[in-house]
């Protein structure tokens, strides 16, 4: 027996490159002059990201690689599922890096540390998506979260930033503690710490006495909490609006897209691979939580007056739509391989589309924030007059989030998740979601309408900051990238659908 597991470095290259890039950024930061620190940090980060992206793409066209294997399974699997997420995370990172340029300068955040922490957080995500044992998942989740706490608090002379970080942190550690306790109980029930071992043991559920099954069910729920917190599912969502509001906007975008996607990666791995035997237990829970999440998120979003908080509640609501397909496990018919595959495909598709449109929305908010730091919805009145392209792009993202043309991508995404739900016989959930899209539209559209309406007479006299002076290349690039992707997904979403379908094979692999 070898003393150390053999490692396929090609398989783990993406996270290694990103984590390494973080170290390089930090080191380089020490040696370059004050003036060029931001540029260097951005350039190195972007280079590392693109390199990792290239590697991941290369891995995606090649065969599935597994490494760090145990007798009953491998800790790290670079399969379609993992690579789907890795490419998603890295693409998101590209846009987040673009959006960060403005914020790092404006809020005078330390560029080296900022970029390093961001890269490390992403490296945790990359590992998370590929990790196939509980310990790896948990540690990776911490690697995702821990730098994020710091990033949220990095606007160091703003008390709101620190407050946001503290809330995020406390909520996160309590959730982690619950997850850890759940893992411990699960270990007690099954005697295994690897996912495959646990899955096998849970699959032999009929062999357990009732009390043991009850404990296992409780443990399953507790384990899921840590990830449900990441995706901001109700009632694990409380941190979300406060944290987003206090965080730098780019980091809020990062949390709402990448971090949430990471949570879903973990949820999918756990629920579909580890806890498949208890699908009848978590299925109804997920279905109910999905319904509650989308409803609460949408209802509260109705009453928002500030853009970031509005988007925060909207991400809560969107988490509900993302969870909905997994709710098919609530019905006996929905627990078949086919239905779960459809469900996973739906969630993955929605995630990809959501990433583009939500990131786009945050990118627009970043651009708007340069002119209106308060980011009140009323501030953007008449934006279509002063910055027509920005207004059109923002409207595109908002309608996509609402699921309406011209944001056809969002509409497809809604169709896909609803299709999975209806196909899996949770029609009631689909109806709830249908009603929720109406509530959602109410607030998305309010913002869009305000932009396209002329300024009210009483505010018309107030000086509108000059549009051109506040234009920012990197931010505009971020908006543009998101817009292009959203439009592409609107016209021809087939590649994403196909790819999500491949990635969702995880759901049927026993």
């Amino acid at each position: 027996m070898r003393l150390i597991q053999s490692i396929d470095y090609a398989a783990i290259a993406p996270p290694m490159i990103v984590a390494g890039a973080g170290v390089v950024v930090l080191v380089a930061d020490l040696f370059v002059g004050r003036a060029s620190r931001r540029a260097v940090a951005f350039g190195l980060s972007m280079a590392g990201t693109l390199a990792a992206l290239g590697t991941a793409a290369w891995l995606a066209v090649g065969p599935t690689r597994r490494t760090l294997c145990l007798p009953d399974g491998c800790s790290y699997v670079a399969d379609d599922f993992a690579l789907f997420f890795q490419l998603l995370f890295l693409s998101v990172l590209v846009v987040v890096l673009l959006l960060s340029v403005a914020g790092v300068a404006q809020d005078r955040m330390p560029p080296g540390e900022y970029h390093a922490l961001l890269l490390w957080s992403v490296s945790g995500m990359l590992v998370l998506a590929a990790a196939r044992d509980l310990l790896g998942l948990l540690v990776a989740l911490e690697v995702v979260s821990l730098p994020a706490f710091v990033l949220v608090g990095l606007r160091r002379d703003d008390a709101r930033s620190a407050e946001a970080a503290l809330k995020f942190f406390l909520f996160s550690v309590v959730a982690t503690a619950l997850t850890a306790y759940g893992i411990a109980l699960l270990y007690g029930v099954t005697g295994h710490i690897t996912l495959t071992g646990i899955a096998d043991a849970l699959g032999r559920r009929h062999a357990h006495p009732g009390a043991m099954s009850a404990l296992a069910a409780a443990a399953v729920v507790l384990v899921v909490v840590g990830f449900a917190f990441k995706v901001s599912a109700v009632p694990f969502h409380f941190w979300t609006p406060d944290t987003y509001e206090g965080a730098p906007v780019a980091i809020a975008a990062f949390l709402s897209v990448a971090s949430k996607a990471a949570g879903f990666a973990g949820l999918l791995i756990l629920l579909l691979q580890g806890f498949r035997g208890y699908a009848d237990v978590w299925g109804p829970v997920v279905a109910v939580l999905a319904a509650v999440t989308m409803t609460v998120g949408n209802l509260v979003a109705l009453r928002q007056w500030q853009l970031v908080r509005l988007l925060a509640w909207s991400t809560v609501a969107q988490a509900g739509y993302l969870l909905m397909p997994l709710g098919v496990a609530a019905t006996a018919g929905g627990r078949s391989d086919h239905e779960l595959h459809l469900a996973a495909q739906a969630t993955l598709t929605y995630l990809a589309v959501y990433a583009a449109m939500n990131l786009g929305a945050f990118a627009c908010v970043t651009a708007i924030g340069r002119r209106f730091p308060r980011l009140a919805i009323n501030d953007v009145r008449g934006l279509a007059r002063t910055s027509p392209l920005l207004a059109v792009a923002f409207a595109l993202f908002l309608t996509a989030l609402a699921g309406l043309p011209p944001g056809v991508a969002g509409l497809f995404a809604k169709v896909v998740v609803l299709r999975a739900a209806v196909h899996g016989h949770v029609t009631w959930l689909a109806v709830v979601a249908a009603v929720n899209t109406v509530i959602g539209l109410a607030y998305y559209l309010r913002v869009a309408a305000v932009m396209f309406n002329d300024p009210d007479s009483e505010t018309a006299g107030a000086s509108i900051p000059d549009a051109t002076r506040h234009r920012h290349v990197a931010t505009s690039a971020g908006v543009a990238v998101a817009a292009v992707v959203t439009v592409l997904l609107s016209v021809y979403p087939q590649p994403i659908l196909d790819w999500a379908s491949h990635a969702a094979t995880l759901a049927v692999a026993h």
Partner: protein
Amino acid sequence: MTGADVVFGLLGLVTFGAAVLVVTARNVIHAALWLVVSLGGLAGCYLVLTAEFVAWVQVLIYIGAVVVLMLFGAMLTRAPIGHLQELDSRNRPVAAVAALATAGVLGTLVVTAFKGAYVDIHHTAIGDGRALGGAVFRYFVLPFEAASVLLLAALVGAIVLTRREI
């Protein structure tokens, strides 16, 4: 009822009692000291359960590092050193209910599930440094590597947040 039961029971009492004092002490410094007692008691429990390495790590990292860090933290934030009501929030009754419910639910679940289960501490694989080191590097390399990034990030993060100038 064996000797191990008795020893574990006593250690458990100490641990639990100290834990209760951790969350009820009127003084943060006292709370930190009670935390030392509680975590120490746990280290004893680990020893009874033949997890030697974990026990020593518990003592070294928790008592040696974490609690010291907390004491520093408490002092740096000029937390009330004396007896002050303000250590507890108005959420206390709710907290008590939630805590009792949590303990009750979890306790009932585990007790009913593991009724009569018995740990034969004489035939367990002893968790010494060698056994655990082997396990980590043979089976858990991925978390290990991830943990290195975690610690690095924690280090950098803690520094960047507390450093005054940029």
